[in-house]
Every structure is written in C-alpha cells, then in structure tokens.
C-alpha cells in the first residue's frame, strides 16, 4: 500500500501522477480521482494559496491516515498546490484505490471536504487587479459536517 502526500509549489499534470499510482496497486477493484482546478471565471486573473509549513503537510498526512483507516483503502494519493496559479491549473488532486467503489469514492469525498475547509491553507483571488481572501462557502461547512 502506498500513501503519498505532497505539497507542490509548481504546476503539476494529474494524469502523470494518477497512472503510476493506479499501476502501483494491482488487484484493486476501483480507483476514484478528483482534480480541482482554478475555475475560469471571467474576471479571475489569478489565485494564490498560502500555507504554513510546520502544520500544512503534517495535517494532510494525518488526514490521509484517517481516510485510509476509515475507508479501508489500498492506497491514497493527495497532492495540493501552493503559490500563485492561473485559471485552468490544477490546485488539488486526491486519488483513492480500494477493493470496492464505495470506499474509493467516499474517501475522495471525505478528503476533499477536509482539504477545502479543514486544512491549513489560505486562498485569495485576484479580480480586476485586487486580491481578496476567500473563505469556505456555507456548502463547504455543511459538506464537512457530514463526516462528524
């Protein structure tokens, strides 16, 4: 079993990570993958993700361990960008391998909900030249509460 958690400060290609991850788990029943990208809204020029090194990666590693145990995963890949990004660039990738589809899909859902509003990242958007900090939407808090 491979649990891989990475913080990257440069662009990444999801396909180049998911292929080898899947191939590393022969015998799996299903693999579910979510990739979040910077949405191409008309006036969004850039997005920046700030993190806090002493806590962000350890927090992601704890989240990964929790997901592996909770959903009985065969493997988990969790990658998150930091720094400045432009529309169309991947921000986050979560891929989970399991024996049955339910574990794989639920694990991705669980990890994404936690990365969105319960991990040590701070996001801001640039629109019309002005940067503005983003907070999770009410939907994000509701999504997170499903797992308590």
């Amino acid at each position, binding site marked *: 079993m491979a649990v891989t958690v990475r913080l990257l400060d440069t662009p990444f290609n999801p396909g180049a990570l998911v292929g080898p991850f899947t191939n590393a788990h022969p015998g799996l029943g299903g693999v579910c993958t979510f990739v*979040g990208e910077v949405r191409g809204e008309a006036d969004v020029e850039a997005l920046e*993700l*700030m993190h*806090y090194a*002493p*806590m962000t990666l*350890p927090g992601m590693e704890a989240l990964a361990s929790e997901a592996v145990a909770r959903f009985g995963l065969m493997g988990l890949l969790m990658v*998150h960008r930091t720094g400045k990004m432009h529309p169309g660039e991947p*921000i*986050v990738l979560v891929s989970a391998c399991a024996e049955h589809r339910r574990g794989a899909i639920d694990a991705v859902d669980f990890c*994404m909900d936690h*990365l*969105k*509003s*319960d*991990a*040590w*990242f*701070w*996001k*801001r958007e640039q629109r019309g030249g002005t940067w503005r*900090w*983003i*907070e*999770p939407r009410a939907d994000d808090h509701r999504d997170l509460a499903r797992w308590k």
Partner: protein
Amino acid sequence: MAVRVVFLGKLADLAGTDERDIAGPLDWDGLLATLSDPLAEAVAGERTRIAVNGTLLSDKTALSAADGDEVALLPPVSGG
C-alpha cells in the same frame, strides 16, 4: 533570538508582513499589545486560532511563548 510571530492569510495583509520577531516571553496580553487595533481585533476573534511550534492551542488566551518559539496566528482556512 526572540519569539517569531507568523501571520497567515488575511492577517498577513493586516500586519503588512508575514512574520515579526517580538522579544519573549510572550503571553496573550503581551501579544495583543504589540498588534495594531484591527489586527488585535482579528486575532481575538473566535475564528482565529494560535499554534506554538506547530501545535494548536486549545485555549489561545493561555499563550505562553519563550524566545526561540514560533507563534502562528491562523485565521479561517480555505483550501482546495
């Protein structure tokens, strides 16, 4: 060596910097006293949390940092 105070997210904008060194020891009242009004207000807000050397405080008003410690001021997060 001093206490390094790290400002995350919008707190970095309010502070005008990502981090600042403050002479220790540093407790909650001492921290607030060194911050500008809007920054102190944001840090005191219930959604801002504090970590010392990477460990979250369950009660931030119990802050007790010495020279060499790193105090992180953590506003509401937003990732993914």
